[in-house]
Structure formats: C-alpha cells, structure tokens
C-alpha cells in the first residue's frame, strides 16, 4: 500500500503500544483486582502480560526483562508489600533495568505508601482508586520509562 519510505516514517511517528506486566507476588490468591486492572489496561490499548499467582520477585523481574515491559504493576493485598516491593526494586537495579517503572496497588497503609514511593515506586493505589486514574498513571510511567531509555520502544 505504501512505498517504503512513507511506511518507515509512519512507524516511527506511531509509538508502539505500552507493554505492562501485571503481577501477583506473595502467597495471596485474591486476584479480582489484578484481573480488573489487567483488563482495563488492555482495553486502553496496552499490551498486558498477566503473570498469574504466587510469583517471587525473581520471577517477576525475569518476566519483565523477557517481555520487555516499560511498567510493572504489583497487586498485593496481604500486607507483605514491605518485604516484596523493595526486593523487586533491588533486582531491577541489579539487572540494570532502572528505567522500568513499578506501580503498586492493594491494601497499602498511607505510611507504607509514602515509604514505597521514597524507595522508587512510581505510584501506589489504594482501594477505591478510579480505573481512569490508574490507566493514566501507567501511561505516564511508560512515558517516563521511554524517556529514560530512548533506545527502547
């Protein structure tokens, strides 16, 4: 349909879709929230990889690397966030994936939420957060990931 040059211009102007990993770390199996978020992000045009349940920080970071995502969304309702999230951040640093943004959702007390943000989490969402807000936060995080690693799409 297009001659070669036109096509390449079009592709570079159109950003490839945002890639997000939605993960459920820890032993908890309550996946209602994770699934709703995954579906909402997909409906918003993103490429969503859902890990399924009981993923260790190592499994999550490996999946993020393999799937080449810009954003990792962690859903934690069990209160284990203070043990799990710092470990994910640490592994990302170890693997040099510092551009990948981490967003956390779940039952996270205010104090812990501020603490996680100080440690490098891009955003924390507590119960009742509107999907629209979460979707735009993922978009912003992905944009920031792309700015930090402009070589990657």
């Amino acid at each position: 349909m297009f001659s070669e040059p036109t096509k390449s211009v079009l592709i570079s102007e159109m950003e490839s879709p945002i890639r997000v990993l939605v993960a459920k770390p820890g032993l908890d199996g309550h996946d209602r929230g994770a699934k709703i978020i995954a579906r909402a992000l997909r409906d918003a045009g993103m490429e969503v990889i859902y890990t399924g349940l009981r993923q260790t920080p190592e499994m999550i970071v490996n999946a993020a690397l393999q799937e080449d995502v810009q954003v990792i969304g962690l859903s934690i309702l069990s209160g284990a966030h203070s043990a799990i999230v710092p470990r994910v951040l640490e592994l990302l640093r170890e693997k040099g994936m510092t551009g990948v943004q981490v967003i956390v959702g779940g039952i996270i007390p205010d104090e812990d939420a501020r603490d996680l943000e100080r440690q490098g989490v891009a955003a924390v969402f507590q119960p009742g957060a509107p999907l629209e807000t979460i979707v735009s936060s993922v978009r912003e995080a992905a944009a920031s990931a792309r700015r930090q690693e402009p070589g990657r799409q």
Partner: protein
Amino acid sequence: MLKASYGAEDVTDPYLPAPGQFPYTRGIHETMYRGRLWTMRQFAGFSTPEETNRRYRYLLEQGQTGLSVAFDLPTLMGYDSDHALAEGEVGKCGVPVSSLADMETLFEGIPLDAVTVSMTINSPAAAVWAMYLVAAEKRGADLRRISGTLQNDILKEYIAQKEYIFPPAPSMRLVTDTIEFGAKHTPRFNPISISGYHIREAGSTALQELAFTLRDGIEYVEWALERGLAIDDFAPRLSFFFNAHNDFFEEIAKYRAGRKLWATLMRDRFGARDERSMKLRFHAQTAGCSLTWQQPYNNVVRTAIQAMAAVLGGAQSLHTNSLDEAYALPGEEAATLALRTQQVIAYESGVTEATDAFGGSYYLERLTLDLEAGARESIRTIDETGGMVKAIERGYPQGEISRASFEYQQKVEKGEAVVVGVNRFQSDDDKPIETLRIDRAVEARQGEKLRELRKTRNNRDVERDLKALRGAAERDGNLMPRLLDAVRSYATLGEICGALRDVFGTYEERPHI
C-alpha cells in the same frame, strides 16, 4: 429487570409450606430464633497463637458464642512459618499454625467440648483438622462430642480464592477422607462448609454464588457416594457458607432459594430419606468486598444491613465485619463494635420473634423463584460439562466470575452503581482510623519456636510417620489415621504437606485475564 412493584400475579408458585417443613424455603426450624439464636461467630486470627488466644478469650468474655480461626497465608498454603515463601506473610492475614504445639497454644484455657470452633482452612484442611482433633483429645475432650466446622471446600479455591496446593483429584480425595472419617468418628463435627462467600467476594453475582456453591455441594456428595458412603450417613453434616451482600431482598431470597434447591436435590437426585440430610444449614458473613477505605464508618451501617439480611434469611451462624477491614485485620475496638451489631439485632430489633418474617412478600417470593430457576439452569449447564471439576479445568466458573466482576466495576466507574463515599458523596477530610499492625518480629519468634521444636521432638518418629503418610498417599485408603499419627509426633504442617506434594504434585492455574 426489576419492576417497580410486585403483586399476587408475580408469585407463580404459591406453594409455600410452613417453616420447618420440606423444602424448608422458609427456614429449617419451625420456631427458628425463638428456640435458639444464631451463633455469633467472629472470624479472628493474627500475629501469633498466643496473641490470638488472648483475642478468643476476650471475644468469649464479650458474649461471643463460637470461635472461628483465621489462619495466615503460609498456613493456608501448607508452609511452615520459617519457609522462604513465608517471608513477610507470617501472622499477617491470620494466625500461623505450623504444628500441634501452635494448635495447643491457640486453644489454651478454652473448653473445646463446650465451644464450637470453625476453621477456615482448605488445601491443608485434613492435616490441620488432625492437629485440632489431637489437641482436643489431649485435653480430654471426647471426639464424639466435640462440635465445629472445617471449611475444607477446595472447589471454591480453584474457582475463586485460589489457595490451592494439589491438583483437583487428590484434593477431592482428601476432602472425601475427612467426610468419611467424620461420619465414623466425629458425628457432631461439620467436616466441610461448602462456600459461596469467596465466590461472591471474587466478584460473582448472587445467582452465580448460589448456583456454583450448590453445584460444588453436588460434587462432594458424588465423591462421597463413590467412596461407598450412604447418603444419610454423611449428608446431615454437610454445611454451607454464604455471603451477606448489599442487596437486602436479593440476599434473603438467595438463602431461601438455596434451602429449597438443596432439599429437593438431596431428596430427588440422591434419594436422601433423613430430613437432616435435606436441611441446608449455613453460616453467613457480611461482604468484605463491600467495605470501603473511604469514610470507613459507613462500613458499620453496611454491615448492619447485611447482617439483618442474613438473620431474616435464617442463618445458623453469623460473622459481622469490622469497620476497619478495608485497611487491615480488625483491631479490638472495631471487632467489639461488629459483635455489638449482632447483639443489637438479636436482642433489640425484634426480628427474631417471627420465623421468615418477609415470607409471602410478593417481591421476595418472586426473587426467590427467579434465583431458584436461574440456579437450576446453571447447575444443569455444569452437569452437562461433566461436573464441577471438569468445569473448573475448562475455566468456566472462573471466567463467568471475572466477567461479572469487570461488568460491576465498569458500572462503578461510570457511576451507574453507587458506592457511597467513593463515587458519590465523597468528602476530602477523611479522618484516619487506627488499625492493627503486625510486627515483623512475629516471623522471627515463630521461626525460633520451630527450630526449638525440631530439636526437642523425636525426629525418628517424625520420619517414620511421614514415610508412612507418603506410602499411604500412594495407595488408596483414608489418610486421616496417618495424618493423626504424624501430627502426634509433632511433624510440622510444612513437612506433612511437603510429603503430600511429593506424591500428589501441585496445581497451577493457567493465568488468563
């Protein structure tokens, strides 16, 4: 689609026998709460067995009439407190019980022959029940007299709550082992509580909750019959657990339709003759997923209305949620207020005077008929799939629930479903409430206790019993005697479940959005 009002023309089946009469639509007892109030059974467990024991004693002093154990996630998944995967989870969502020693501490000073105890445990239920039975026995209680309930409903784990360990077939075998053992040795204990609660919390509709739960019940009955048990030897001890959600009349109708359906199924499909086999007894819990983080005091009101529906629907026991449960496990003050809510309904509201007080209401009767018809149809669909295990393997109930959950969430996002304080009537100055925090030191303390236990017990006995358990798991036959032996030698839950994992393998769900 609901109409604005209902009349005699809506009640197409006017056949409505009195309470206490088959099919028990109006209740399983003639006089209901005049004879005996429901059991006020608040679900509790956190931090350590010592701390939880203190909360149990406090709740009993406050007039609570039964206990209900919440176990932490490592325990629910069959891991000891010192397992690598337990990191950060010990004592967080419940109490850790890694061995008989923890179970003994949990019930110290509580008369196990007088208080009924419910235990919310599923995959490792047979092993945890063995710990409870041995603890009771050591305290001199007669197993034929002790009473309580084991949740032990693995099917709803695959469907909704997802705390599974083993694949469906060996899991169903373990459940059947407990039903068989119970029928012979613990005639007053409910070996299973077939649960719709978690299905609803995962986002199902009331109809899906009802239909999937009853179909799960059918599956357990079929496995027990296959084992060679006679229907009336075990069916009287099958118990149920339903959610008490926001839609007041729909919830009451759900319990009524459930009783009618179960009675009919037991009599006509399974040939039960004993009336007790046909009577659906249930525990209810108010809807945790309806509680909001915003304006948490509104949760007290929601819980009171939901609890009222459970009572007007004829529940045998009830848990009312605490206002702080969108944040954390309940603190003592919030837990007391939740119990007081039940006491106000029981002793002040007057709703206990007449059984099935709304019976005969055009609207309620229509809703009951609709839920009954809908559930019958859904049960037929699952029958045609080849049963619930097959349906689960195909992801059928899981998919139906995800869809319902997403549809509801979209209504909330659009403001079509109102959540007071969240998408309407918001306020900016929410005052923070005090919540319970579990210290990470709990993890170290539990680990220390386990190391001590492994040093002081007779490890040769433990090895012998675990080997015997593994051998028995490889063959046919009831595993309860082997589990009781292992527990008596203080084999830990992690060791016991580890032995069973070796033989049975583990289950993993194919992740799908």
